């Protein structure tokens, strides 16, 4: 048996799980509820999104969340009966996470 290359995607999964656990709830509250409540207006949200710290925060949150979710969904579908499609699912989910991360990098860092 050969040693697995899974550590590459697992470390992204684990890092993404931690980042999402720490920062997703507050992000959802701020955008989804603080804005409707009037605590956060359109201009301030614009500033936050374009602030260097805000850009780094959003890039890390988006990219790692995508890898976290892609890894988990891959194994969930495998466990639900798509074991035969394991490689195809890996390509699909990690591919989508990579594209999403590149899109986020382009939107935030250029």
């Amino acid at each position, binding site marked *: 048996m050969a040693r697995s290359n899974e550590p590459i995607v697992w470390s992204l999964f684990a890092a993404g799980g931690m980042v999402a656990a720490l920062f*997703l709830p507050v992000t959802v509250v701020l955008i989804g509820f603080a804005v409707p409540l009037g605590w956060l207006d359109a201009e301030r949200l614009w500033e936050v999104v374009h602030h260097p710290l805000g850009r780094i925060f959003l890039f890390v*949150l*988006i990219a790692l969340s*995508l890898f976290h979710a*892609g890894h988990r969904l891959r194994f969930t579908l495998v466990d639900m009966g798509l074991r035969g499609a394991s490689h195809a699912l890996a390509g699909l989910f990690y591919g989508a996470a990579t594209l999403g991360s590149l899109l986020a990098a382009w939107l935030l860092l250029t």
Partner: protein
Amino acid sequence: MAKDWIRPMPRAWWLTRRTWRVFMLRELTSAFVAAYAAFLLLLLLRAREAGDPASTVWTGFVECLSSPWSLAFHGAVLAMALLHTATWFVAAPKALRLFRGEEPVPERIVVGAHFAAWFGASLLVAWLVLG
């Protein structure tokens, strides 16, 4: 030579035990995590399209955040995100076994430290944004 009897798992195996249903719910939080990452990408696309905070593309988008659809979406994502946070922290001491000399650090201390960090980080972000 007698034949062994094989009992295959049912297709919907994950519905058959309570802990497996909970497991599947935990795994499905990731669909909501992904959905929210996609939503954030949409927000950034709108910002790029608008080019200016006064543009109606941006103000219109921000107005949409108050719509019932947005509130329902954010409510669902928040519930699943909190479930993810809770399950993630409760699982953390499994991978992180700490010792003080011969005594293992109790799991609830490791879990508690994660929740404390989460609380602090959330407050910090909220304070920076709402300032």
